[in-house]
């Protein structure tokens, strides 16, 4: 029984069948990648996991509980964090402020009405945020305006924000999209470190085979809304069905 169990999920947009009969089981503390050509339904599936979309059929269970019908913030409170394709951070705020928000969300829940307690008095939150920043090599930038950071640092910050919540499942949506090779490699190293150091399950949606094969323990190939194969990376490489699905995309970028 995996920590994330997706059963028979289907989703239609009007006449278009975006997902049908998707079954997926992600084992705890593993790295699971979902790959597939453009339009295969990867993002739709992800959105079904985080509550942005509600599937028409099937079920999504996280740690034995259904996520369906819950709002994104509720699903996050269950222990699922998400990293976006383009880093979504609080651009107007400093790095430290960015970090504190998930920390508060983790400690105080979805809403806490106490408008006048001081941030500066929240020593545990500050300490925790700083330790995660240190882990991510961002500590020296703690007072920087986050919008003015480089893209790689923004990505790092976003991941740091997710990790600060100590999620049980981290969802990454094409974390290296649009990155230069060097940045991509840095990100791979970062994710490897996270994988190795923390007790965390990672589901990664990726286009870039290099990233996938460096990180994943299991890979699901999605095509036209349905899982084609699921296996360990070594077997996925050179699998005829996968080649078929990627035909014409000899250089998946």
């Amino acid at each position, binding site marked *: 029984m995996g920590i994330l169990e997706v059963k028979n999920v289907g989703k239609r947009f009007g006449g278009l069948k975006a997902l049908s009969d998707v079954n997926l089981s992600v084992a705890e503390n593993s790295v699971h990648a979902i790959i597939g050509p453009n339009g295969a339904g990867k993002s739709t599936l992800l959105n079904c996991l985080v509550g942005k979309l509600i599937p028409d059929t099937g079920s999504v269970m996280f740690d034995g509980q259904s996520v369906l019908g819950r709002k994104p913030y509720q699903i996050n409170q269950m222990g699922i964090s998400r990293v976006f394709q383009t880093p979504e951070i*609080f651009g107007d705020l400093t790095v430290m402020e960015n970090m504190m928000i998930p920390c508060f969300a983790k400690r105080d829940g979805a809403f806490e009405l106490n408008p006048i307690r001081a941030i500066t008095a929240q020593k545990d939150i500050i300490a925790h945020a700083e330790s995660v920043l240190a882990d991510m090599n961002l500590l020296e930038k703690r007072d920087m305006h986050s919008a003015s950071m480089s893209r790689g640092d923004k990505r790092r910050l976003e991941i740091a924000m997710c990790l600060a919540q100590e999620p049980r499942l981290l969802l990454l949506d094409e974390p290296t999209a649009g990155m230069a090779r060097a940045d991509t490699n840095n990100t791979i190293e970062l994710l490897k470190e996270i994988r190795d150091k923390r007790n965390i399950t990672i589901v990664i949606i990726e286009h870039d085979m290099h990233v996938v094969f460096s990180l994943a323990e299991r890979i699901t190939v999605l095509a036209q809304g349905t899982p084609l194969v699921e296996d360990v990376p070594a077997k996925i490489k050179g699998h005829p069905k996968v080649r078929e699905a990627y035909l014409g995309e000899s250089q998946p970028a």
Partner: protein
Amino acid sequence: MLGLDRKDFILLLVVFALVVLAPFLLNPFPTNSAMAQFNAGYPDLMQRFVIFGIFAIGFNLLFGLTGYLSFGHAAFLGVGSYSAVWMFKLLSMSVVPAIIASVIASGIFALLIGYISLRRTGIYFSILTLAFAQMSFNLAYSVLTPITNGETGLQITLADPRILGVTATESGSIPVTNLLGAEMRSTYIMDVGTWAFQFNVGYYVCAAIMLLAFYVSVRIFRSPFGLMLRAIKANKTRLNYTGLNIRPYTLAVFVISGMYAGLAGGLMASMDPLAGAERMQWTASGEVVLMTILGGAGTLIGPVLGAGVIKYFENIFSKINSSVLESWFAFMPENMQHAAVYVSEHFVGPGWHLTLGLLFMLVVTFLPGGLVEGGQRLSRLFRRKPQKDAARDSTQSNPAE
């Protein structure tokens, strides 16, 4: 100190000093001088400065922090005023129940309107709040006249019950608003040479409440709650996926902000027990938007500055008439005097709107951060001079908060 860091505490002290010394600071010119026209240190205007300061501080909590632009905030001010006057009519002339009632009533009203309006964001939210406020105004002016006394405004009369107070004084007049017996309108006038400084009980009551309101607003800015509000403005998507529920935050701050407006309305009625429907009109809502942006939205002190500037124009510039101008330019030869009067006439008296319009355009064009940015630039200018050769001063100023 008081749970604030050093910078904020200094700011609070500065505001405290300004507010306490306002009767001196706003009356820099001797009573009989030609410049006395520019004196603003009389009770009514000083009260207005701090009351509209409270209104703008509250508005800024909503708009400056979350970015939700409410175009109907005057409705809460109006509800606060009406509640306060009704307290004066029914209970007693003490300002305490009036102010409490105004805050509670406007809070409830804000809860209702906020609950519905906050289902939408952006300009759709603005129009919803505008629509509610305009409905309130139109109804208060006409159909609801039994409650609001329509066009003439709700006033206290000699026929009011005032069950905890007196209906009329011994001399047959309407009693006046007071706090524990101290009348809001009592004023000391201190004559110093040719200066006259006025110390008004009502002003100091308002000032004390304004300082408290300001202090609470600083605390909100510096709290996790305030951080969440700024996060709402910065990135709603990220906030959603960070396990935070946006709606209760926005609703909470909307209600707090509405209560600030109601407090301002209650204080207005306490200083001058009359509540007119036009307090709720969209132009009044627009005014607080302009105050906040003019001063600097999202900054702590900006809204108070903006409120002061707009009220100053409204009350001082509008009173400068051609005969005043003639006396100013009396030193000039006659032709020049006429020309000077003719030109300046367009900007004062009946033309004060024009000056205000030009000010809006100039400030927003050249000082995108409002007056606060102007102040920062000035202080940077002064600060840099003495240490020209010193090691490069950090030009990166902290946001004025």
